[in-house]
């Protein structure tokens, strides 16, 4: 039952891809959207079925592995294509298929009129399949396959508008940085093959302690996985691709670059926690990178002018919180924030998409303003999403972010440092997100708004777009209530079997106290944003150059890696390949030609001469060999 549901959940979107691809022009454009949406709804239903069936089992028996066939096999080694359904996988399956079907339904409205809708829906359904493969994998190889395929679908969708050079460049960048992560993960997998002789999660984690005896080994394995995780989740220092990825259509940014794919790194750390726990330094590095990312990207978000890029930097910053939590061992807190973040960040992107759609594709916030009156429902959705992001009660982010803050402060000196970063991040979050809200919605209507939204025109898009936004608004309001500190915690007890938290748990009273502190900080940030961007009683300070330059990461990488690679490749071609390798061939050819002329001269037409010459030639070589042997 559970296994069948898992396969249905996985294969439904793939069936949609095949139907769209084989249907070609015969398939009406709208039908492609319905197929993709319908298939993810089927996936969601299957995931719910699997959830109910799993909840029927006792807590210790909530793991189902279903094996299809040997994917890669030699005689001594075998990797199966197998799926694992356990609480952790179920959480991810529900998020991917649930939020996924909402966002794909939204795209039916958003992509209307686009001539290549079929391609779009085929790609996005392929993404859903790949992501489900990633989260349902029962061994590291299948996980890596899903990992690579989500990267591929991300590449295809970022570059969906093929005629835009910036979109193509962004797509390539995303793929190549993720290829670095894939290679690092492959290295970890080779080590596991060599020392654990298996890649099955059960087998590897069962040997985690014995692998941990060799600290070099376990640190390398964990580091390899971590590099893969930070590449996929756009954490420092492999984060530079995500802002550029905003070149893709907005629903893609919502689904892939906010709600699901980019959180895969968090999932990986939680999934592989037995390995990370044996390599505490690596795990702490993950937490540290998360803290660095949440600060740096929060700061960069302050000076961005493109509405989608602000949200993108915000995504990195929020994933930084999840890394921080996973890095100190608070797995259920990390997953909880992953889930609520999927709700409110998808909401923010989709609401921003409504704005961009209404303004004819304009993404520059400086040209927006005063949209509150023209798009009241979108404004409310955006307000709720922003509130949830900042962590205002009773919205979703309040509960999940405070769980992370409270756990951090209860975990030693390192935890307190992380806590300080996290609380500073709360201030940044409040600043940049309310800056966005005020710039877009408050104040007077800008020229652009007046021009693109003549009076009385329905501005907020078709129902296909507004309905998913409404559902996500409800989720952003209520999603946090599934776990309230001190009152109930079904979420963490559900995950307890798979990922028992090893961080020391804060007391409920302490958690509520810290909530109050972070709330004050957040409100302070909102107040500053209000005075600067809404009331405009204060002048905004000039943006520091370092932030506008995105802390020089792109430039450094260009200088350190890309240009040297190009230069080396170029020099190899012009200094070595052509003059030495290719020319030497010509020399040989020339020699053969001379030899040929000589041969022509001795062509006497007498068979015995030939025989003699051949025999002489061969015997010279033979002699040479006998001597040299």
């Amino acid at each position: 039952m559970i296994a069948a549901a898992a396969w249905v959940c996985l294969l439904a979107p793939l069936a949609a891809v095949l139907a769209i691809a084989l249907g070609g022009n015969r398939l009406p454009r709208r039908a492609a959207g319905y197929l993709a949406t319908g298939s993810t709804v089927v996936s969601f239903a299957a995931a719910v079925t699997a959830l109910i069936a799993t909840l029927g089992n006792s807590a210790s028996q909530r793991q189902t592995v279903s094996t299809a066939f040997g994917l890669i096999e030699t005689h001594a080694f075998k990797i199966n294509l197998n799926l694992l359904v356990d609480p952790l996988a179920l959480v991810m399956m529900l998020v991917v298929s649930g939020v996924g079907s909402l966002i794909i339904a939204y795209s039916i409205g958003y992509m209307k009129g686009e001539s290549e809708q079929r391609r779009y829906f085929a790609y996005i359904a392929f993404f859903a399949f790949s992501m489900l493969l990633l989260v349902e994998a029962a061994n590291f190889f299948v996980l890596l396959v899903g990992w690579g395929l989500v990267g591929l679908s991300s590449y295809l969708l970022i570059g969906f508008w093929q005629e835009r050079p910036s979109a193509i460049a962004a797509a390539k960048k995303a793929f190549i940085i993720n290829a670095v992560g894939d290679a690092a993960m492959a290295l970890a997998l080779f080590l596991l093959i060599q020392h654990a002789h298996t890649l099955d999660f059960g087998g590897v984690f069962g040997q985690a302690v014995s692998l941990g005896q060799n600290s070099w080994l376990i640190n390398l394995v964990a580091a390899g996985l971590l590099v893969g995780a930070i590449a996929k989740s756009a954490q420092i220092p492999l984060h530079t691709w995500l802002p550029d990825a905003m070149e893709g259509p907005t629903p893609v940014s919502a689904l892939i670059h906010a709600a699901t794919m980019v959180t895969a790194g968090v999932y990986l750390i939680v999934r592989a926690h037995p390995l990370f726990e044996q390599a505490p330094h690596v795990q702490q590095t993950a937490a540290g990178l998360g803290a660095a990312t949440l600060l740096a990207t929060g700061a960069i978000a302050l000076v961005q002018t493109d509405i989608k890029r602000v949200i993108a930097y915000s995504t990195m910053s929020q994933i930084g919180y999840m890394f921080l939590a996973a890095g100190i061992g608070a797995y259920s807190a990390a997953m909880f924030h992953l889930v609520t973040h999927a709700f409110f960040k998808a909401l923010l992107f989709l609401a921003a998409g409504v704005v961009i759609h209404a303004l004819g594709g304009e993404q520059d916030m400086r040209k927006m303003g005063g949209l509150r009156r023209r798009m009241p429902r979108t404004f409310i959705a955006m307000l709720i999403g922003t509130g949830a992001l900042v962590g205002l009660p009773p919205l979703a982010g309040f509960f999940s972010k405070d769980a992370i803050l409270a756990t951090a402060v209860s975990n030693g000196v390192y935890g307190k440092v992380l806590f300080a970063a996290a609380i500073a991040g709360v201030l940044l979050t409040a600043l940049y997100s309310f800056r966005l809200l005020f710039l877009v919605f408050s104040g007077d209507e800008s020229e652009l708004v007046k021009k693109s939204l003549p009076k009385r025109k329905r501005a907020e898009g078709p129902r296909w777009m507004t309905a998913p936004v409404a559902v996500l608004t409800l989720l952003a309001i209520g999603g946090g209530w599934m776990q309230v500190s001190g009152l109930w915690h079904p979420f963490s007890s559900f995950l307890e079997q798979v990922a028992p938290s090893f961080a020391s748990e804060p007391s409920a009273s302490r958690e509520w106290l810290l909530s109050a502190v972070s709330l004050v900080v957040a409100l302070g940030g909102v107040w500053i944003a209000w005075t600067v961007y809404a009331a405009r009683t204060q002048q905004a300070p000039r943006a520091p150059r370092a932030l506008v330059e995105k802390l020089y990461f792109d430039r450094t990488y260009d200088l350190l890696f890309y240009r040297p690679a190009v230069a080396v490749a170029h020099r190899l071609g012009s200094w070595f390949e052509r003059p030495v390798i290719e020319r030497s061939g010509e020399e040989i050819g020339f020699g053969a030609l001379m030899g040929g002329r000589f041969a022509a001269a001795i062509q006497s037409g007498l068979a015995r001469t030939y025989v003699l010459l051949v025999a002489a030639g061969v015997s010279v070589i033979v002699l040479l060999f006998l001597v040299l042997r």
Partner: protein
Amino acid sequence: MLTTALICLPLLGALSVFLLPGPRMWVGSLALFFSLAELALWVSSLIRFDFGSARIQFEQQHSWISDLGISYHVGLFGFSLWLVGLTVVVMTAAIAYGLWSGRERANAYYALMLLLLAAIVGVFTAQDLILFYVAYEAMMIPLYVLIGVWGGAGRLRATFKFVAYTMAGSLLMFATIVIYGLSHGFDLATAQQSGSVWLFLGFAAAFAVKAPLFPLHGWLADAYRESPPEVAALLSGVISKVAVFGFLRIALTQFPGPTHDLRSLMLALSAVGLVYGSLLAFRAPDIRGVVAYSSLAQMSLIGLGVFAQNELSLSGSVLQMVNHGLVSAALFLLAGVIELRTSTGALSRLGGMARGRPILASLIISIGVISLAVPGSNAFAGEFLILAGVFQQGWGWAIPGLVAMVLAAMYMLRLVSALLHREVGEAVTKKAPDVLLPELCVIGALLGCMLALSVWPAAISKHSFACLSQPPVTSAGISSQSKAQVGLACVPRAGSTTATTTGTAK
């Protein structure tokens, strides 16, 4: 009997195609019919093949020059069966493509193609060194003619270089075979192993030219650029595999000692070639240049797998040989499709071809990402197995492989974008049509094979070396014994139940 039929059917085909009078279409159709019949024959041998057995199958032996112990001895092992399959599939695609693009002097052209097919099958099945050499030479002659007569503008220069390189290799190999055979015996199933480094090098140099391995690849770029697309597809897809087959069947099995002693050298050449080829592919100015140098990189990767010589890397190498054969053949045919429409392969004059050409775009993107070994593709499965095996041989050797994974993404995505994206290139006219049905059938069939292998790579990786189940294996993992001895055990020797462990210098 079946093996002989596999060799003789295309020979018969070549003869009848050569003699058949009539229009070009008929001649080509007859050739296609013969290659399809060969395909059917191969499928029937695949069905009847016993993958559990370690012995030579469909074996046939007739005395030829009995004084010297030379015989007509043919048969198939698991891995050679797959290589024959690759040959037949790619050749069928190449003949179909040639038929579609209407080659001049059809009788000679198709007869040569079928002759080439027979010769390659002969190389993969020969169990006697002289027979191997005869088939090897018989394979080269049609190639020289096919490039020299039907090639592009610079064909003479390309042919010249190609002949110079390969003739040097062949002569060296012939001398080596004579010396080796006279002292150790010509029959591969019964010949004794040798410890001579020089004899090993004689074979290795010949195969390294053919593969090619760095730095013996001087002929590669010109030959791949100037051949007709379908011949380039054969050259990089199939002929290069002949060389690796030679390494596997002769160098590794008959020279275990020298292989062991020179392993570091061979691994180093492969590692350098892998990174070097990838870097050159990244700057190559035309489609075929990118594919040619990526072929050099891929062959070096396979070389790494062969010389790391453990069960993971060897199984991966066979898988990757088939993968790369399909991928590079498809890429060269695609290059032909594009050149037919734009009469250029220069990337600077191409671009923007995706608009209005969905099938072309889909084919280029799918084959491109398979070629860069995106996880989940058959190429990734092969690469993963190879590098996992190489990693166990010495972790340092796997690092160039991982670097090359990133470089492969860089050069393939550059190629894909240069063809499909950006603004429309000056050589691309509005009228240039999308991929037409015949082209789609040919390239789509190759893509179908790749996708099937992506879903089930174990079809090849598990069914290449039956003998590998015999060495003792501890628990579920890879035993330390299987690491060193695989090279001997993988190609079993008739008449001796236990493989000799060390090379015996004679």
